[in-house]
């Protein structure tokens, strides 16, 4: 029973509040939120995969700056790829694309700092747990972006390559425009967090 409870990985956004400020800033639409979430997930996954072998090569005193540099480089590479994939989405994500470095780093190191005992004597993170959290970040970002755009503007902008993004217009008026603003985004996120915590409590999960 304890084993099952131990294997529970809380959602980094809804339980750990990781990276919610840039997430709210960029999740005005499904397209931007998905591309941002994918970037954070890929950065976290790549860091989770690259950090353990790097730790064996790089001295202890240089590991933190090296990890930060690696994270920044990954964010930069993803930003360049996003610019090629869709210049419109990249323009919307703006300064938040390089800031993926922080979200990716937070996601990849969260598990180690939250429960260091579960990561073996060498302290290396388990790639599976990091991947799981990265996926949760991606889905949370896409969900928040879709909900804000759908309820706020009555549209859904799909991520797509090129300049023209396919947009589904579900209402010819903006139902609740405040949700597109940062304040509205935080209000919506608050409700989603409350629902997540309530469901987790019913399921007997203990959240931080």
């Amino acid at each position, binding site marked *: 029973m304890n084993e099952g409870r131990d294997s529970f990985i809380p959602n980094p956004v809804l339980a750990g509040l990781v990276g919610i400020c840039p997430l709210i800033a960029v999740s*005005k*639409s499904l*397209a*931007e939120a998905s591309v941002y979430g994918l970037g954070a997930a890929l950065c976290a996954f790549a860091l989770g995969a690259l950090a353990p072998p*790097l730790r064996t*090569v*790089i*001295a202890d005193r*240089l590991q933190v700056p*090296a990890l930060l*540099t*690696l994270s920044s*480089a990954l964010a*930069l*590479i993803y930003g*360049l*790829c996003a*610019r*090629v994939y869709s*210049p*419109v*989405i990249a*323009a*919307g994500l*703006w300064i938040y694309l390089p800031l993926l470095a922080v979200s990716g780093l937070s996601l990849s190191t969260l598990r180690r700092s939250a429960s260091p005992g579960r990561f073996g004597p060498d302290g290396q993170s388990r790639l599976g747990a990091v991947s799981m959290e990265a996926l949760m970040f991606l889905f949370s970002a896409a969900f928040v972006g879709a909900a804000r*755009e759908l309820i706020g*503007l009555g*549209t859904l*902008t799909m991520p797509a390559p*090129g*300049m*023209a*993004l396919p947009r589904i*217009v579900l209402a*010819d008026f*903006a139902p609740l425009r405040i949700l*597109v*603003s940062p304040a509205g985004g935080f209000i919506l996120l608050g409700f989603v967090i409350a629902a997540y915590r309530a469901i987790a409590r019913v399921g007997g999960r203990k959240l931080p």
Partner: protein
Amino acid sequence: MAVDKRERAMENLAVASVLGFLAFIVGALSFAADSNSIAVERSAFDQDGRVVALAGHADDPAFDRVFRIQSDSSLAFGAVLTFRSPGGSALVGALFSPNGDLLELRLLGSCASRLPEKAQDLIGAFPGAGEALARAADRVRYLSRASQGAES
């Protein structure tokens, strides 16, 4: 002591080589991404005449480069501007005459703007007409200077 120093030097060398490799990858990718951006921006003005990319990047956060567009009868300058508002963002192709007058704005793509006609409103609000100190007006003035400099 000497061994310790040599060990540290080797550690530093290992980190430097890893970071150097990363810098090489990022540099190579940024060249590729830049040439892709030039091709995409250039295609926005293809219909207006023969497009020649001007050398150097513009010192403005709203656009990266100015294109010289030579048609049979006239010369114009174009830039792809980025407009951001709380409602969304848009990429707009702006066409200028050699003396800096704005000839045409065309929407290339938008994200999270309410509807296409609203995106057009977003474009119309930005050139800063009638606002002497508006940032958007400064941007147009900059374009004007850039185009005049390029002509001479």
